[in-house]
């Protein structure tokens, strides 16, 4: 049985009232609740993605001792809305020689892949859209759609820069998926579950219960995951698919206006999603530092705040890394993935398995406590 937002809301009294209104047509009610929740998710995610572009520019300005955007709204906060309006009113140019259908499809695939991952992002114990019993697995599988979108965007443009960017993007995204998968596998092994709700609930309590501090191998797995996730979202120093100094703009060279905007939006939301997943898998997720036995709505909102706070802290780190480190060379990129991260991740997995058998699943804190 998958825990969903509907099954969470069903425990409240007002839900009985809703059931009375809808009568026997409970499928309609469920669909309606899901649709409203999805609408809220999309609106919040789009705002976070938009504010991500603003944060990127503001933080980069801070690092480079500039002012950054400060004209639109207070402190330039509404800059992303101005950018959105600008993108909608820009002319939509498509090369004559492009593959028209795939050219349309590519940004949509990116967006669909990212939004589908939002469905399992565990923002709180009740408000998660759905807590699939194969959540982690589903997340890794569905986020591959983004790689497909990047590759198709590069291929369909029929431009040499785009083709180079798309090819690089495809090979990079699929390569870095291996270390990410193996490090997530180590956490699955430690938790004994693929469901986000179960994994997060096992980290309840103080910082020492977080999976990053469970054993030395899960500590390492966090960093492998984080580096791999950064490469999978095409963030600098791994932004080779769109390396502006070599490939003009990479896979979205030929994209203008709103379609380029959707590529950018998908990228920024994906960064938020991978930060959120890192927070949920390794950093304790939405758990409060103290045990709370009562389950009321304000607790849920506090949980949302905690998870989003952790995710945004990681978001800041990703932006910070982008403006601090130079871009990698493409052969270094591949050797880092296949010759360093993948072997480390494999031995990390073996180490986790041996730890689980040798210490019967106890964390390092529990062992030291005895």
């Amino acid at each position, binding site marked *: 049985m998958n825990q969903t937002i509907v099954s969470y809301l069903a425990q409240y009294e007002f839900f009985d009232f809703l059931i009375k209104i809808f009568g026997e047509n409970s499928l309609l009610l469920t669909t309606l609740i899901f649709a409203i929740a999805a609408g809220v998710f999309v609106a919040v995610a789009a705002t976070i993605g938009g504010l991500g572009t603003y944060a990127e520019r503001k933080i980069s300005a801070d690092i480079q001792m500039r002012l950054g955007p400060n004209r639109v709204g207070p402190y330039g906060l509404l800059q992303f809305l101005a950018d959105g309006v600008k993108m909608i*009113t820009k002319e939509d140019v498509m090369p004559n020689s492009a593959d028209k259908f795939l050219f349309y499809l590519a940004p949509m695939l990116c967006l*669909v892949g990212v939004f589908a991952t939002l469905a399992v992002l565990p923002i709180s114990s009740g408000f998660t859209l759905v807590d699939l019993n194969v959540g982690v697995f589903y997340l890794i599988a569905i986020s591959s759609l983004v790689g497909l979108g990047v590759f198709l965007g590069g291929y369909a443009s029929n431009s040499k820069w785009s083709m180079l960017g798309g090819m690089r993007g495809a090979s990079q995204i699929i390569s870095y998926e291996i270390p990410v998968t193996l490090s997530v596998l180590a956490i699955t092994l430690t938790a004994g579950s693929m469901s986000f709700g179960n994994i997060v609930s096992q980290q309840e309590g103080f910082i020492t219960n977080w999976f990053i501090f469970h054993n030395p191998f899960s500590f390492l797995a966090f960093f492998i995951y984080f580096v791999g996730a950064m490469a999978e979202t095409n963030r600098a120093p791994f932004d080779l698919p769109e390396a502006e100094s070599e490939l003009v703009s990479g896979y979205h060279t030929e994209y203008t206006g709103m379609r380029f905007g959707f590529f950018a939006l998908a990228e920024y939301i994906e960064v938020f999603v991978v930060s959120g997943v890192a927070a949920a898998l390794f950093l304790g997720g939405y758990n409060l530092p103290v045990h709370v036995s009562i389950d009321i709505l304000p607790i849920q909102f506090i949980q949302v705040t905690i998870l989003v706070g952790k995710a945004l802290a990681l978001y800041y780190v990703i932006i910070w890394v982008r403006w601090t480190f130079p871009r990698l060379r493409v052969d270094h990129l591949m050797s880092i993935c*296949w010759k360093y991260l993948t072997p480390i991740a494999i031995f990390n997995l073996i180490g986790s398995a041996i730890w689980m058998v040798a210490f019967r699943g106890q964390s390092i804190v529990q062992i030291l406590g005895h």
Partner: protein
Amino acid sequence: MTSTQIDGLMPVVIMMIAAVVLFVGGHFASVLLSPKKPTLQKNTPYECGEVPVGTAWSAFNVRFYVVGLIFIIFDVESVLMFPVATVFNQLVKEGNGIFILVEFLVFIVILITGIVYCWKKGDLDWVRSYQVSSQKQVASKAKKVSA
């Protein structure tokens, strides 16, 4: 009872539909609001101001294909390991720890053999083909000089 037991995949489908709706809506707004004045020059692929020569859909470096192949092997292996990892803890608690660990290691050793093989073959080196050919050239030149 009735409404709570809905298939968990429904929100997933709804989120995907939401993404499609957002995309189509944004696109529609852009069609309504943006100018549309295509010219022949504007619609050529960007090639730094030069007139593009040929198409971009040409033969591409085979390295990308090799990367794709290695990825598929590893991806399938990790897919097969997920169910094992899920029941791992349970089996350890039942007292079958050593058994499941050995089974797990046998599987991973096959994986490691694969990556070691690729590494030895040089498929993990990005600039391998150039190095080999230049070394051969240097060797053949050295032979000629010595002869």
